[in-house]
């Protein structure tokens, strides 16, 4: 399993192919690969967005991402996972996040991929700041909201 923070633009499909090739002979037991790729929208809450900056908490972000992936692995017992998340300055259409899950069967792969992404959105310390034509603004919270605290 691999979790990475990237400071520069990345191509999720290139990353996926590279990681898949590293799996080598292990890939013969896998029957399913699911992936989610999140990209930057050029609009949000009814307004055009020109660019975005993604901030994170070095150290805590990696730790939380690993925990999210490991918890999901324990629950769904999938074979492998790759999570890559951008930070820094992004333009519309730039990839933000890649979540890929390899498993023997589709059910596990779909559910674990979705769960990792949702957990990431709620628990991984990243913050988006959008640049609109006339101002900047912090994104207040992700769709679906955030719980207040996580003991």
């Amino acid at each position, binding site marked *: 399993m691999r979790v990475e923070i990237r400071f520069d633009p990345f191509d999720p499909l290139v990353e996926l192919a590279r990681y898949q090739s590293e799996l080598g002979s292990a890939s013969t037991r896998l029957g399913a690969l699911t992936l989610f790729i999140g990209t930057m929208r050029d609009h949000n809450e009814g307004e055009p967005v020109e660019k975005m900056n993604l901030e994170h908490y070095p150290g805590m972000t990696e730790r939380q991402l690993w925990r999210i992936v490991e918890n999901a692995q324990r629950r769904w017992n999938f074979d492998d996972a790759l999570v890559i998340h951008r930070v820094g300055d992004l333009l519309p259409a730039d990839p933000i996040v890649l979540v890929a899950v390899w498993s023997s069967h589709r059910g596990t792969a779909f559910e674990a991929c979705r769960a990792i992404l949702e957990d990431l959105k709620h628990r991984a310390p990243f913050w988006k700041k959008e640049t609109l034509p006339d101002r900047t603004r912090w994104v207040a919270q*992700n769709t679906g909201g955030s719980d207040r*605290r996580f003991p």
Partner: protein
Amino acid sequence: MTIHVRYFASLRERFGRAEENLVADGITTVADVWKAVCEGTPIPDQVLCAVNLEYATPETPVHDGDEVAFFPPVTGG
């Protein structure tokens, strides 16, 4: 005791700094740290906190040398 305090995103902008060392006595919880850096006010509901890179609550104990962070709701992904 010394607590390393960090702020992120909108809170970093509001405080005008990303981090500071809080040197004070009588601090036992995360809530005490916030009060010390924020003129005695309680932690607002929308502020999240962490101690040594783990999510915490206002009641979480803090110790000399700990890193305490305050930040708004996360918006990654």
